[in-house]
């Protein structure tokens, strides 16, 4: 009898224990997880303070920031092809148009039509692709010239991205004298920020003038993108940069983020420049990882002048398609805390976002709205910005 009682009690004890475990765990989850005490679990931020050196000044020339000319046309194509996760090589956009229509293309079929003309006969290649592609007139591109002055006064030049349309980018290169700089080998290297159509597909335009230029790409290119480097007529060194910090020359480093990006692209590379007596300047192609993430990464990873975040140039990927989301307001509201003193934004920042920056009182450097740039809140095509140097 007493044994029976013991058995019953044990069973009841386990019943209670099972309920208690579930209840106790839920209680802990509910009461502690979002309380201020939880912060004791966060490790202290250990700054690596990597020394990338310093430069005297840096100047950026906006060769082109207008990646596409009509947002409605671009978004119409994206909608028709199936949305923002569709592989960019299947859109049938130039230069990979094969005549089969929107969303039905491929790199292989597209490049076969023009490969024999790259990189020297871009006019004919573009004329062919214009007939076979979807919305060829809408293609523009993003590219910038970065001129850095070292502490001893030596000046060095780098190209960030090579745009999209062969026609538009060739015109833009000529307008800013990039063609001659490339021919004269004044530009040391081409940094490709990421594989997106508007930053990368115009790469034959760079190779037309300097096919041997060293090209830095972020890790994560898809096979089509890697093949395009060869098909575009490149004869120089290709350096694939792994995620993390990559010092280039004193005062200049790139940082690669392993991030998935719309239109089936992976990984992006951006630039840090440490300007003597001023602070850190961030130069980005699209900044899919976000400008605040880029700044926080700088804080953790590198040492920079006066521990000061000084300037920004480039696309900040906030509302590239003039769309909006409350999380973009989080960025607009937070950016002020970082204390940037000179912001040159354009491209995928979004005109509405630039407007909100200006309204928030941020030091946005106004542009001239020339060469098809739409508003002065953007640092537009042909505009220049200097950090540590007047332009």
């Amino acid at each position: 009898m007493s044994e029976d009682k013991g058995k019953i009690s044990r069973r009841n004890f386990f019943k209670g224990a099972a309920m208690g475990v579930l209840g106790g765990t839920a209680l802990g989850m509910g009461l502690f997880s979002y309380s201020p005490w939880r912060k004791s679990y966060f490790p202290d931020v250990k700054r690596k303070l990597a020394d990338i050196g310093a430069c005297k000044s840096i100047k950026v020339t906006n060769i082109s920031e207008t990646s596409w000319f009509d947002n409605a046309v671009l978004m119409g194509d994206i909608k028709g092809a199936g949305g923002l996760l569709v592989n960019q090589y299947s859109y049938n956009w130039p230069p990979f148009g094969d005549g089969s229509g929107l969303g039905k293309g491929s790199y292989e079929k597209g490049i076969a039509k023009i490969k024999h003309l790259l990189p020297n006969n871009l006019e004919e290649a573009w004329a062919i692709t214009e007939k076979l592609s979807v919305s060829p007139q809408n293609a523009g591109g993003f590219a910038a010239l970065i001129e850095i002055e070292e502490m001893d006064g030596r000046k060095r030049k780098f190209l960030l991205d090579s745009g999209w349309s062969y026609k538009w980018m060739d015109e833009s290169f000529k307008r800013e004298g990039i063609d001659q700089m490339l021919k004269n080998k004044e530009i040391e290297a081409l940094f490709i920020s990421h594989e997106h159509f508007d930053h990368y597909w115009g790469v034959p335009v760079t190779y037309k003038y300097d096919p041997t230029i060293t090209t830095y790409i972020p890790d994560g290119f898809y096979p089509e993108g890697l093949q395009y480097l060869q098909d575009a007529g490149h004869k120089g060194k290709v350096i694939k940069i792994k995620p993390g910090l990559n010092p280039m020359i004193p005062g200049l480093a790139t940082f690669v983020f392993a991030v998935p990006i719309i239109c089936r692209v992976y990984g992006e590379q951006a630039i840090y420049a440490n300007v003597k007596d001023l602070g850190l300047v961030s130069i980005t192609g699209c900044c899919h990882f976000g400008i605040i993430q880029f700044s926080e990464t700088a804080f953790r990873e590198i040492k920079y002048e006066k521990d000061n975040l000084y300037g920004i140039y480039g696309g900040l990927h906030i509302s590239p398609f003039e769309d909006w989301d409350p999380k973009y307001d989080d960025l607009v509201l937070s950016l002020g805390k970082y204390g940037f003193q000179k912001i040159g934004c354009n491209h995928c920042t979004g005109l509405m976002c630039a407007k909100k920056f200006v309204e928030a009182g941020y030091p946005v450097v106004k542009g001239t709205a020339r060469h098809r740039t739409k508003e002065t809140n953007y640092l537009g095509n042909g505009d220049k910005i200097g950090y540590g140097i007047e332009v």
Partner: protein
Amino acid sequence: MERYGTGYLEERKLVKRWPQPIPAIVALVLTLAVFYATWWIFQDPRGWMRMYTPYVGYMYTRWWLIMLIWMVYIFNYWPFKRKWLEDTHPVVKGAVLTVISVVILWVLIKGFFESLLGNYGIAYFNPGNLLKLPGMTEFFALEYASLACLMFAAIASWLSPAWVVACEEVPWQNLNQPGKGISILVATFFLSTLIFFMTMHSHMGILYYPWQYFTSIAPPYWEKFANTVSGNFHVSWIMCCTVTVWIVETIWERFPFKLIRTNWLRRVVAFFGIIAIAWAMHLFLYFAQELTWGPAIRGTRLINAPDWRWLHVGEMAVFFLVPALFITFYCGNWPKRFSLPVNVLVRTLITISAAILLYIFYYKTSHDYLGTQKGFMHEQQFPMIPTIWLINIWLVHHWFMDNWPGWKMVPKTAEEIAADHAAEKAKLAEVRWDPALGWGLGAGAVCGVAIYFITLSVLPWVYQNITVIK
């Protein structure tokens, strides 16, 4: 009097055609095949209709889930007669009921949201009206409208089943169909509308420039607490509510709420208890992300952004729902050999373990077969779409097709139904107050708290030592 499908799920006996685990494996293989085929046809960005834009596909996935819940839980299969449900071949039944669910879905989206609400109430439900905004593209007009609809769906997918599971259909439980269904539908839809305005409307209001101060609260009231102005904060806890409702209904067999004998008290405690458990999950899963990826930084994008972290809480929660439903639908709610609380605990532990494995498996492999990209975070990627799509297929298979072909549906006899009721009563009677139960409860609660804190210590180590994405 015709009962339609009232009590059909409880009063059907699913007889296995083969010994386990064969029926479960057959069901899994079959439903995964249907999942992949339909994914390719409707959703996949490489496939045919490419609805994964993402919001269009997401909206239809969420609302289809609710259509299934409405048809089965709220309308009890009305207007289909009981005899038809019992005698029709599962494949025919599945096809007919699925087609009807899709038709209702289409009417709801196009008729109610887009045409009625979007034309006579709130412009953002109608892409055509949104297009009138300067600079608005057709793509984003459709995406914004779909976003509004799917935010509504998130709320409805919690409240619709909650009214049945927690509130036990009161006060309409004795009404015949379709009166009961219509009453519950109107009540839950009304509540959903109310909660939509209090949680999601401000999100929609600040989508436009300038912020719509005069039609929505901007900045929203949750900004400081949630560290974001995004409505994803609410998506998070509401998704946790949805998941908790179904966990309570399936692997928990409505435990512990069904231990309360006073009807009104049981219903009230169940409704708010589900919300309390969901909030515990909501806050913990956010903290778990802080422990693995570091504290969120407001204004960042991607993995460190608070808005995405909240959204990811909801996404993580759905990973728990998948194994919970599988255990109930295809494993007969195993185990059943212990007392009710111990069974519930064991099933919960299995569900948590399976959900973690599924989460790792998903992020390791989904980009290879779903047309998505690798990475935990992508601006346009929502794991809730494939997981809920699979759940929808399981609901069709379990509710409309009686788990065919692994199981055969046989209506229970009156004696079997009476025996079920008696067993249920005995099960509840077994869990009654006793000093041993009290000691167990206390010791268990201490262990539960200890488990929680041990988990907190282990999580960063786990993240450091398991590479999910190379």
